[in-house]
């Protein structure tokens, strides 16, 4: 038939038009991201905020994120096993919060070899195989801790408490703090003590130190656990406000100690921003956009005087 071609042509055009119309804005393949935390059990407010940031990014950027992790922060072998499982599910990218700076290197390389982009968040791994490291600059946090301590005292023995001598956050914060304190020769650091992120350990260490060094003038605490333990011990012993305590992270108890004057300064990270940025960078990497090797999440110094600023209260008291 002579017109068959014409008819077929027109019908096809009409059909194509309708289909195009109906299916425009159809779902593109969503970027699949696996988030491997140090632990899914620990319920620190910090990680709750990180996950809030992750959720916001999921909503904003239209990606998919599954969250896994080991049972405790020190279960390095378990985290390696979790990584292996995650690699097997072939996500587009992995956001890793490494519980050990060195021991997660191999599994990170394995993931990258399998074509999965690895982004580290908060705690890095010791390899360039990962695409970017999203974190606050822990060395800078350490330096801020040191600087805040020196704001309140100019001499005397002080102690440094850390949550880990293995993870990069612990290592670098201590390094930064020691460097800052070294600038004031009258301030003597009696030692760096590792509580292995355990509050009881930290409290025991604090008590021992107060006993050993009765003239101790201050504490630098590398994270929330150390900070609370020290504040608690000082309050118990009626020493609140007599020693200078500077710490990291943000919790309700820390805020109360800050109000009471037991803690003089806290350096707070912006965990919400960190979670958001990690997902954002992961999505960028998967889409082939370039990202810097280090994505810094800025920190804020909070003191009793500025804690109820309209900006700071938003950081201290997240919704």
């Amino acid at each position, binding site marked *: 038939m*002579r017109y068959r071609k014409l008819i077929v042509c027109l*019908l096809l055009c*009409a059909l194509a038009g309708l289909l195009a*119309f109906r299916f425009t804005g159809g779902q593109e393949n969503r970027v699949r991201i696996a988030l491997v935390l140090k632990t899914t059990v620990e319920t620190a407010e910090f990680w709750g905020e990180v996950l809030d*940031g992750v959720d916001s990014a999921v909503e904003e950027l239209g990606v998919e994120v599954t969250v896994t992790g080991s049972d405790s922060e020190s279960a390095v072998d378990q985290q390696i096993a979790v990584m292996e499982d995650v690699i097997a599910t072939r996500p587009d990218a992995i956001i890793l919060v490494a519980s050990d700076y060195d021991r997660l290197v191999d599994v990170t390389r394995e993931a990258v070899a399998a074509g999965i982009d690895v982004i580290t968040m908060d705690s890095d791994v010791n390899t360039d195989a990962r695409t970017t490291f999203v974190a606050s600059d822990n060395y800078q946090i350490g330096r801020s801790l040191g600087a805040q301590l020196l704001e309140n005292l100019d001499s005397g023995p002080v102690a440094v408490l850390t949550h880990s001598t293995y993870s990069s956050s612990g290592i670098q914060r201590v390094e930064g703090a020691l460097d800052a304190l070294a600038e004031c020769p009258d301030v003597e650091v009696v030692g760096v003590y590792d509580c292995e992120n355990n509050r009881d350990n930290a409290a025991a260490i604090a008590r021992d130190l107060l006993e050993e060094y009765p003239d101790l003038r201050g504490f630098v605490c590398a994270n929330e656990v150390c900070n609370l333990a020290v504040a608690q011990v000082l309050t118990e012993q009626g020493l609140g406000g007599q020693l200078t305590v500077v710490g990291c992270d943000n919790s309700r108890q820390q805020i109360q100690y800050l109000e009471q004057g037991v803690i003089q300064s806290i350096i707070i990270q912006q965990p919400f921003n960190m979670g958001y940025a990690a997902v954002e960078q992961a999505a960028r990497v998967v889409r082939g956009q370039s990202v810097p090797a280090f994505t810094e999440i800025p920190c804020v110094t909070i003191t009793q005087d500025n804690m109820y600023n309209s900006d700071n209260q938003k*950081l201290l008291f997240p*919704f």
Partner: protein
Amino acid sequence: MKHRRYSIATAMVTAFTILIVAVTLVINARSYENNRRQLQSVATDYTNQLISQVNSQMDMYVDYLKDLSNFIVRNSAVTAYLRDSSQQEAVSAILSHAATTRDEIFAIALAAADGRVLFDDPSYRLNPYATYQNAGWFQTAVAQPDQVHISTSRVENLVEGQYPWVISLSQAITDSQGNLLGVLLVDLRYDIITDICASVDLGNRGYLFLVDSSGAILWHPKQKLLNAGLLQEHMEAVGREDSQPLTIDDEKGQRLYFSHRSQSTGWTVVGVAYAEELQEPQSELFRQYLIIDAVAVGAALVLSILISRAITTPLRKLTAIMQSVEGGDFTVRSDIRSGSEVTQLSDTFNHMIGTIQDLMAEQKRTEEQKRETEWALLQAQIKPHFLYNTLDSIIWMSHAGRNEEVVEMTQALAQLLRTSIGRGEDIITLREEVSHVESYLTIQKMRYREKLRYELDVEPDTLDCRLPKLVLQPLVENAIYHGIKVKEDGGSIRVTSMLDEDQLIITVEDDGSGMTPDQLAHILEPKESDEGSSKIGVYNVHERLQMYFGSQFGLKFFSEPDRGTTAMLILPRLTEETEERDHALS
């Protein structure tokens, strides 16, 4: 320029389709545009309404709390308590009663100028580290004592161990001299705003946000992203007082910002609607129009194909029939009966083939007739009887020793035969024809002697005229056999010729027995019998002349009994030149 020829069908289908598509599109486009505008204004109105509802809901709420605050502040027990801590029980009851009226009230606190704080809830303890005298709510209330002040969203740290986000209403309480006694604080849970704002449906992606009188964002669905600096809101939309929304178009899509400011709270409710979602019904409308268009185009296509087929199919059939006629088959007839024009064409065609068929049959018949006539002519020319008689005469004259006469007669016969057979030409000059007749008359003269007299009176200027051969001799023969032979004393024959304008007229007169009117009437009719061969000859001549030259030429007879007969040959004047010209023309 090359001309492409399209079939009628293609032309019609194309034309119809283009026409219908164009008309459909134009009409639909206009109608769609009208409907779209209407829908858009409905959507805008609806969004505006929604937002002003949120506003009035919030106003109502705040107004209620202001009334509550005023009620407490004017209570004399409250003043008494602030002065000297008396009536604490009663004031506590008032506060607690006021607080229970609304679930959203986190706390009502009466803060005395001297540092005493009384809460509505007896379980609340004052946070000893809260330096509320420095707080904004306290200071603004003190600065403007006769108003109820509304704070922006803030963290309340007045109650020990609790740090809720609240919105605070504060009002100063003074004595009659205007001295400050204290400040009443009503803390409203921030969630109430979330409840009011989040319940408003502005589409899947649309949302509301609330801006306080200082221009700070009081509530936003993505407050955390804003706080984290990961999101910027378009604050330029705030404070626009016209009802037309502000259009923002960036990578997030086109959005409309509707802004309404409340007089009572000083807050501005900003509604953000995605144009795409507002236009959802428009998209649906567009889809419907598209379907209508597609159906119309399809129908147009089908219809135009059907119509064009209805026209072209009979035409194509007719073409096929014409082709078979072209191939030589005149018996076919078209039986098409569709559409008056085509039927008419078909009928005319049938009629035409019929006529052609008749004409061809006629021509065939004429041809046959001509052949028969020619055969008869040949027979008429060399009549066996005439030949026998002549030869007998020659023999008889030879016996009688009339040698001169024998020579003369034989010469004449020879001449006669020569002319009859001729050189195969049909058309000869009158000169030749006359010489033929003369030979014939010579022979007959010798047979009939004194009984036959003849005279050839031919005008010299007619001698070169041309005419079909052997037309004269049958007339002479007819005159001899039917006119003179039967008369006792014989008769005379006179042959004359003359030119009359374009005609050549030859007459053969005799003064023989003549014909009766009845005989005369039938002289030019074909004869079947062999009754008189010369009559066949006469008819034959007439037929031939008419066949050659048409009906106005031929033979005419004039006759009276016992007086004689005149045969008149009327011919066109043909000379050698005219003949050549005719040849050239044909």
